[in-house]
């Protein structure tokens, strides 16, 4: 088990270029010992690159990787005590499942008795006992993926298991089963696990904490709830949630910020922050789930036109036209949808202010 610390880490695949393009922009990040983490982000954001740097398959061009405080940059993958599960199941086709699981132990020169007991134990946990004698080539995709995971688990010395989108090729109905298995294994072994995915649902069911990556940087590291309720960056708001956060481009005005005629009041903390900077890139963000929708005028509610409604069974997504801006609101199944015009209000508590795409904190009392 180990804590993984990325110190001023950056990586460029081609450093000889005049202006090297960085796949990973300089970052500092700590994966605490024994946690279950997800590395979430869209395709091409650098999450696989980061994973390969941690496992040692790739050497970072700048900065250090520390395992429990020890620099491991120059240590090859086989000596880093990590296990990695790849997107496509990697099994040794000609070997039996038993031999596959025993392979890392045999390479380490473990005794036969130890191999027997360890492989038996792991096979039982992964529910592979029945297929131990089968040839690995003839397994189903999810069984293969369990075998490649098992090769990491049989080793006592594994300090972290890295997953690179391991459920990509698994049938949907088996995905949740395997995901639950992963969670269970984490609880049992308490190994540090880092799980790369572009699927927010996968990330939030597996991980205690999610690192959201965007353009080569971790933009937010927090619990799924934090990422949902307080997105640090407009990208987090947009990427997490379905549909993503609504953003209104606003201007400075008397009591806060305005969207056209509409004034959004801000609290002291936010006003202070606004005074300190002179940027005009201001946005107000609100989650579709937190928008209130009425069918009659109601206090401060704004009038908007209902454009269309998507009924998704357990909830509905209503697209509203608010002074030319498309706003999405998420309604419960049983909530009536107004026809023609609707009146919407934004609870202050869920209004987030973004300056230059980054969140302005509402201060302590809102924690």
């Amino acid at each position: 088990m180990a804590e993984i610390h990325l110190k001023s880490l950056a990586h460029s695949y081609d450093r000889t270029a005049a202006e090297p393009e960085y796949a990973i922009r300089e970052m500092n990040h700590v994966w605490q010992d024994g946690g279950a983490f997800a590395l979430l982000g869209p395709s091409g954001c650098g999450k696989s690159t980061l994973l390969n740097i941690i496992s040692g398959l790739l050497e970072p061009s700048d900065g250090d990787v520390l395992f429990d405080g020890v620099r491991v940059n120059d240590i090859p993958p086989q000596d880093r005590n990590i296990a990695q599960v790849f997107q496509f199941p990697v099994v040794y086709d000609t070997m039996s499942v038993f031999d596959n699981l025993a392979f890392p132990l045999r390479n380490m020169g473990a005794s036969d008795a130890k191999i027997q007991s360890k492989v038996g134990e792991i096979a039982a946990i992964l529910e592979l006992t029945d297929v131990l004698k089968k040839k690995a080539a003839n397994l189903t995709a999810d069984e293969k993926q369990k075998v490649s995971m098992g090769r990491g688990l049989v080793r006592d010395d594994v300090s972290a298991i890295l997953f690179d989108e391991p459920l990509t090729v698994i049938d949907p109905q088996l995905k949740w089963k395997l995901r639950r298995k992963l969670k269970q294994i984490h609880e049992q072994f308490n190994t540090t696990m880092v799980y790369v995915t572009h699927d927010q649902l996968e990330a939030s069911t597996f991980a205690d904490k999610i690192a959201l990556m965007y353009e080569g940087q971790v933009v937010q590291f927090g619990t799924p709830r934090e990422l949902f309720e307080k997105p640090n960056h407009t990208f987090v708001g947009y990427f997490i949630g379905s549909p993503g956060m609504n953003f209104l481009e606003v201007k400075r005005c008397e009591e806060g910020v305005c969207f056209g005629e509409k004034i959004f009041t801000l609290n002291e903390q936010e006003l202070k922050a606004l005074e300190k900077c002179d940027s005009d890139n201001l946005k107000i963000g609100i989650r579709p789930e937190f928008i209130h929708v009425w069918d009659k005028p109601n206090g401060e509610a704004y009038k908007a036109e209902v454009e269309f409604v998507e009924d998704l069974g357990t909830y509905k997504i209503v697209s509203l036209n608010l002074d030319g801006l498309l706003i999405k609101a998420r309604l419960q199944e049983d909530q009536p949808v107004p026809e023609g015009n609707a009146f919407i209000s934004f609870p202050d508590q869920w209004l987030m202010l973004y300056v230059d795409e980054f969140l302005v904190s509402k201060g302590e009392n809102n924690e």
Partner: protein
Amino acid sequence: MNKSRSNKAWFLVLPVVLLVAFSAVVPLMTVVNYSIQDIFDVNTRIYVGTEWYREILSDPRLQDSLVRQFIFSGAVLLIEIPLGIAVALMMPKTGNWSVVTLLVLALPLLVPLNVVGTIWQIFGRADIGLFGWALNEMGMNYNYAANPMDAWFTVLLMDVWHWTSLVALLAYSGLRAIPDAYYQAASIDRASSWAVFRYIQLPKLKSVLLIGVLLRFMDSFMIYTEPFVLTGGGPGNSTTFLSQALTKMAVGQFDIGPAGAFSIIYFLIILLVSWLFYTAMTHGDSK
């Protein structure tokens, strides 16, 4: 179930049936026809049953050729397959050098068969051939035209030079198709390079190697032009392989009956051995 049955589908298969009939079945049946009759002229033909077959199978010269043929094909496979894999493993994976190696390797495959024979015929001569001259200068009494061992050595070497590239190129394409994740997983599992070869590369190469083995077996078993140009089957009969014996019989002596029987047997041997290779190499895939 009230499907109306229609036999129209058969008409759609007809072109293929005709094509196969004219390209394979009709010529083959002609040969079968020859092999069971003694034909003197268009009007005089006698049915002889299996007589020609018995004659061919008991001909000691042909038996010798058959043994020689098996030894030759065996040697070709034993040398070219491992050597081809070894070459493929050593080839650069990316960059300009990989292109250069690919080109150089492909060159022997582009040389016409009789030119290959001619090249080695001259190359191996003790007076004007670099290879033969060099061996003799080194004190070896090398003469492929007089010494059966030297003739065999030269024919084999020529075949290895000519065809190992094919195996190497096949194996190379097979190696390139292995995803990086396999090597990465193996390195994390602390596999030795031998284990990587034995458990990742070799199993993944199986399908291309099957094609390689079959092609090299069939080609070497039917080899004709190169030894014909190089040694003419000599010295004595030491490098006379089956196809050469067949040609001599069919075209040289015009013994159409025995030649027909010979062809059928020859064809069946190739079919049988290819089938054996195929079953042996795909055996155990579905357990």
